[in-house]
C-alpha cells in the first residue's frame, strides 16, 4: 500500500534524519560526560527539525532550532560549566540493581509494542478540526490562526507558566537567608563536632554539650557547612 509515491530525495532525507535522531538520542543516554550528552542532544534536535520540515511544519522547525538548540541546550551547557559537574560518571556501578534491567526490559516491551502497532494501519481521527495544514496559505499564517482562535485560552495561560519560570529561577538562585539567632547560622561549630568519626555511641557530650536551641536541626547545619557529608537518617523504613 505504501512505497508507491515515495521519491528518492524524500526517502534519503528521512532515513538520514531519523538515523541522526535515534543515534544521537542513544548517545545522550550512554555518553559518560554531560557535555557530550548535551552535544548529542543538539544533534537529535536538529534531526527532529529536519523531520518537521519534511512534514510541512517549517515554522516549528525554525522554532525548534532557535528555542531548543539555541536556548535550552545552551542553558544546559551553562549549568554544566557553572557547577563544574562535567566529571565523568561511573556508568558501571549502579546501587539500584533492579532499576537498570527493569528500565531496559520496559523499553524493550514498549519497543515491541511499537513494532506491532507499526504493522497495523495507524488510525486517523476526524480531519480538519482546527484548520488545514499544508494548504495554500503559509504555515505561519495557519499556525497563527489556530493559536489565536481555537487555542486562544492555552496561549494566554502560557503567560502564567513563563511568569512562574521567571519567579522560580530568581527565588531559587538567591542565597539562602541567614538571619542571626537562627539555627542555620548558629550551629556551625557543634555540627562539625558530631561529624567526627571518633564520636562514641554514648557520646556524653552529644546529649549535654549542645544548646537546646539547635537540637534536631543539627544535621542540616552540618551539611550546610560542607564539612560533613553525612546521610541524615530521618525516616523509618517503608
Amino acid at each position: 500500500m505504501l512505497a508507491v509515491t515515495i521519491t528518492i530525495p524524500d526517502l534519503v532525507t528521512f532515513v538520514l534524519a531519523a538515523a541522526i535522531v535515534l543515534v544521537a538520542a542513544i548517545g545522550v543516554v550512554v555518553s559518560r560526560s554531560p557535555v557530550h550528552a548535551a552535544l548529542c542532544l543538539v544533534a537529535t534536535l536538529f534531526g527532529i527539525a529536519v523531520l518537521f520540515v519534511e512534514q510541512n511544519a517549517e515554522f516549528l522547525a525554525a522554532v525548534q532550532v532557535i528555542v531548543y538548540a539555541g536556548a535550552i541546550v545552551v542553558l544546559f551547557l551553562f549549568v554544566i560549566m557553572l557547577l563544574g559537574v562535567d566529571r565523568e560518571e561511573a556508568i558501571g556501578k549502579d546501587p539500584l540493581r533492579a532499576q537498570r534491567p527493569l528500565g531496559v526490559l520496559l523499553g524493550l516491551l514498549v519497543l515491541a509494542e511499537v513494532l506491532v502497532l507499526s504493522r497495523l494501519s495507524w488510525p486517523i481521527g476526524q480531519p480538519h478540526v482546527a484548520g488545514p495544514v499544508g494548504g495554500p496559505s503559509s504555515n505561519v499564517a495557519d499556525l497563527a490562526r489556530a493559536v489565536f482562535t481555537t487555542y486562544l485560552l492555552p496561549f494566554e495561560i502560557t503567560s502564567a507558566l513563563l511568569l512562574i519560570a521567571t519567579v522560580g529561577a530568581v527565588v531559587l538562585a538567591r542565597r539562602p537567608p541567614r538571619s542571626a539567632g537562627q539555627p542555620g547560622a548558629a550551629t556551625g561549630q557543634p555540627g562539625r563536632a558530631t561529624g567526627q568519626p571518633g564520636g562514641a555511641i554514648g557520646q556524653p557530650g552529644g546529649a549535654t554539650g549542645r544548646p537546646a536551641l539547635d537540637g534536631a536541626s543539627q544535621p542540616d547545619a552540618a551539611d550546610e557547612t560542607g564539612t560533613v557529608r553525612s546521610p541524615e537518617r530521618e525516616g523509618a523504613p517503608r
Partner: protein
Amino acid sequence: MTPLLSLLVAQVPALRLPQVDYFALLPEIVMAGMAFVTLGARSLTRRGLPPAVWTLVTMATGLASGTLAVLLGRRVETHGAFAAVDGALAVDGFSVLFLVLVSAAVVLFALAAHPWIEREGEDGAELLSLGMLSASGAMFMAAANDLLVIFLGLEILSIALYVLAALNRRRAASGEAAIKYFVLGAFSSAIFLYGIALTYGATGSTNLARIGTYLAANVSTHGGLLLAGLALLLVGLGFKVAAVPFHTWTPDVYQGSPSPVTGFMAAVAKAGGFAALVRILFAAMPTLRLDWQPVLYALAVLSLVVGAILAVVQRDVKRMLAYSSISHAGFILVGVVAASAAGAASVGYYLLTYTFLIMGSFAVVTVVGGPADAHQDLEDYRGLARRQPLLALGFAILLVAQAGVPFTTGFLAKFYVLTAVIAQGGYVLAVIAMLAAVAVAFFYLRLVLVMYGWAGAGAGAGAGAVGPVGDADAAGAGEVVLPAGTTSLAGVGAGGGGEPDLAVLGGGGGLALATATSTGVEQAISGEGLVAAPEGLAAGDGDPVPFPDATKVVLALCVAFTVVFGIWPAPVVDFARHATLLFGLR
C-alpha cells in the same frame, strides 16, 4: 497601502477571534492576577512589608475568587452549564466545586504558611504568590475542556510546586525533595503528553467534547492507538494523584518539603489531578468505560492496601500523612470507578473535605515541626496534649475525621464514595475499601493516643525494655487495646526493616533512653561509625510548642468545617450534588 500589503490583506481571511466570556474566567484571572500584583508590590517595596500583609492579601484573593466561583455557580444553576472561550473551558457544577475548593485551599495555605514564614525568615510574597499561581493552574485543570488546557494547567500547578518544595533553603532535604519531585513530575508530564498526542491522533482533536462525540459516533474502529493513549494518560495522572504503583515519590517529597507546602501540595495537586481524571474519563471517554474501569479498579485496590499497610509502620509523621494520602487517593479512585454522576459528585465531596482535613493537619505539623521543620518524629508529638491542649485537640479531631469517624465530614466522604460504587454493583471494592479504612484508622488513633500520652509508640517497642505500652490503665475500651497491638507490631516492623539506629538504641542507647523516657532519634552518622545521639531533649515534656494566632484560625476553620458539616451535612452535600459535568456522564 502598498500593493504587496493589500495583496496580503486580500489573501488572508479575516481573523475571527473567539468570544471570551470574562465572567467565566474571573476566578482564575483574579487568582493569577493577584499573584502578579503581589510580586510587583514586593519588588517595588525596598525593605519589604511585614509578612502579615502578604498573608492578608492572599487570603483576600482566595476569598474573592471563591466568591466569584460561587456567583458563577449561581449562573450555572439558573442558565445551565456552558462552554467558554471557543470550547476550551467548561463552566459547570463540577468546575465550580473545584474552583471553590482551590480557593479555600489558598486561604488555608496563607494562614498555615504565615507562622512558617515568620519562623524561617523567608519572603512571604514569593511563597504566597507562587502558591496563588499554582492554584490558578489547578483551577484551569479543573475547568478545562481541552486536553491541552489540562496539560498547561498541570504544568502551571506542578512547576510552581517544584519551586515551593525547594523553598526551605536552610534544609538540604528540601532541595532533595524538590529535585525528586521535579524529575518524576517531568517524567510523568511527558508520559501524559504522549498520551495526549496519541489520543489526538486517534480522534482528531484535543477538545474533550469533540473527542466524546467522535468516539460516540465511531465505535471501536481502531482500538490500539486510542487505548495506548488512554493508558499513558492514566499513568501520567496516576503519578500526579499519587496512586499506587506511581506513588514512590510521595513520602520523600512530603517529608522534605516545607510543611505548609506539603499540605497545599496534598490538597491542590490531588484535587487538580482528580478533576482532570474525572473530566477526561467521564466527559471524553465514557464509551471506553469497559477499558478504563478495570485499570482504575486495580489502582484503587493497590492504593488502599499499600497506603494502609505502609502508613502504619512509619515513624515520621509527615511520611505517615503521605501514606495516608495515598490511601485517601485509593478511596477517591473508588468514586471514579463508580463511573456515574454520583461518583463524580462523591469525588468532589471527598476532595473538598480532604482539603480542610489535610490543610489543618499540616498547619499543626508546621508549628510542631519547629525551626527548619526538624521535629517530625512521632515522639515529638508525645504529650502534645499537655503542652498545647487546644492544638492537640484540633489535630485529634482532624485525625479521627480522616479515619472516618461518624459525625465528621471524613465519614460522610467515605460513605458517599462507597454508596456511589455500591449503586454500580461494586460490592467487593466497597468491602476492600472498608477494610482498608479500618486498617488505616489504627495509624490515626495511634497518633492521637501518643499525643495524649496513652500509648508507647514505635521507638519504645523497638527498644524493648523501655517501651511501656501504657494503655492498660487508659480506659478499658477495646478500641484502645487494638492500637497497642499495632503499635508494637509497627515497632518490630521498623526494627526489622534494616534500620540500624534502632538496634543501637536497644543496646547502647538504653541508658539515655531510660532518662529521656523516649527520644526522637535524629542521629548523625559519620564516617563508618554510627553515632546515636539522643536529641529529643527530654521529649517527655519536649520543647514548648508555639501556637500562633494564624494557626489558631486555620485550625478553627478546618475543625469547624469538619464537625459542623459532619453533623449538618446538607449544604455541602447539596453543593457537591450539583457538581455535574457539562458533557459526558450525567
